[in-house]
């Protein structure tokens, strides 16, 4: 019997899941790149990133290039949580097919 409570609720939301997926695909993403890739509004993206940062899944660095630029990356805890989340999702889908 599958325990759906094993799914990380912080990741189990489309917007945050998409952010976590992109951060898992490359070492880091700038805010602008995340925004253009996901077609999200500034406000929505900031809210999701703050949530993920608050629970320790995402870290950010601020740089001063020709203008201020913030880059985001998964923390070690974030990568582990994402891998775990993927495993549970796969189990759910497999169980559904059987």
């Amino acid at each position, binding site marked *: 019997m599958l325990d759906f409570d094993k799914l990380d609720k912080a990741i189990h939301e489309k*917007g945050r*899941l998409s952010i976590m*997926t*992109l951060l898992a695909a*490359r070492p880091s993403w700038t805010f602008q790149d995340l925004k*253009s*890739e*996901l*077609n*999200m509004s500034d406000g929505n993206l900031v809210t999701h990133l703050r949530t993920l940062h608050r629970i320790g899944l995402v870290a950010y660095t601020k740089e001063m290039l020709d203008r201020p630029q913030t880059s985001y990356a998964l923390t070690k805890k974030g990568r582990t949580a994402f891998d775990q989340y993927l495993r549970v999702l796969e189990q759910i889908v497999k169980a559904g097919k059987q």
Partner: protein
Amino acid sequence: MDERTRAAEHLRIIRSLMERATVYRAISAPTALIGGLASLAASIWMLRRAGVIGASERVGAFSTRDFIGPWLIVLVITLGANTFFVWREAQRDGRPLFSPGLRLAWRSVVPSILIAAAITFVGWRNPSDLEGPTILGLTWIGCYGLALLSTMTFAPRSLVVLGGSFVFTAVFWLLILSSPVLPPIEELRGYIGANFAMGLTFGFFHLIYAAFTWRPERNAAAQPLVLE
């Protein structure tokens, strides 16, 4: 929506985003088709001009500039087509023209392109060098192959194979030209040899690549990613 349906939907999102973020095809099939046809046309036209095709005798020597000019036109046509196709795809997906993937690809290929551009400049300044077209043609072929190979960490396998084919051809051609064992093959050098090599690689190889990677327009029923 039950939890299993939702899980399947989330896996679809993950897969789609992962592919978009990690795989970037710098050359689309339509671009390869147009570039391939333009290259073949240029190659055939230049070989006809030299009397290799459709004439009973060869026509005199051609300068390096005679070689560079038509191929620059082919480059402009192909770049124009590529820009159009990238723009159209960006419009369709609601993404900016200069996507992170495009910028990453550009950063990877620029060093090879700069080398090719510098050697082209030197060739243009020395138009009377009869070996100029050979050197230039093989440099372009080799540098283009290296540019494609430089994207191998995020390019699909077909593009890596295409890049490898260009590099292999350039090296093989050079080895044959300088082989101490084989008799000299005049058709492989100078203006004629360079145009043969360009037609084979930029023309024929691109057409093969286009045929293998051509996909029908995206299914209109495919679900887009909607996050908000």
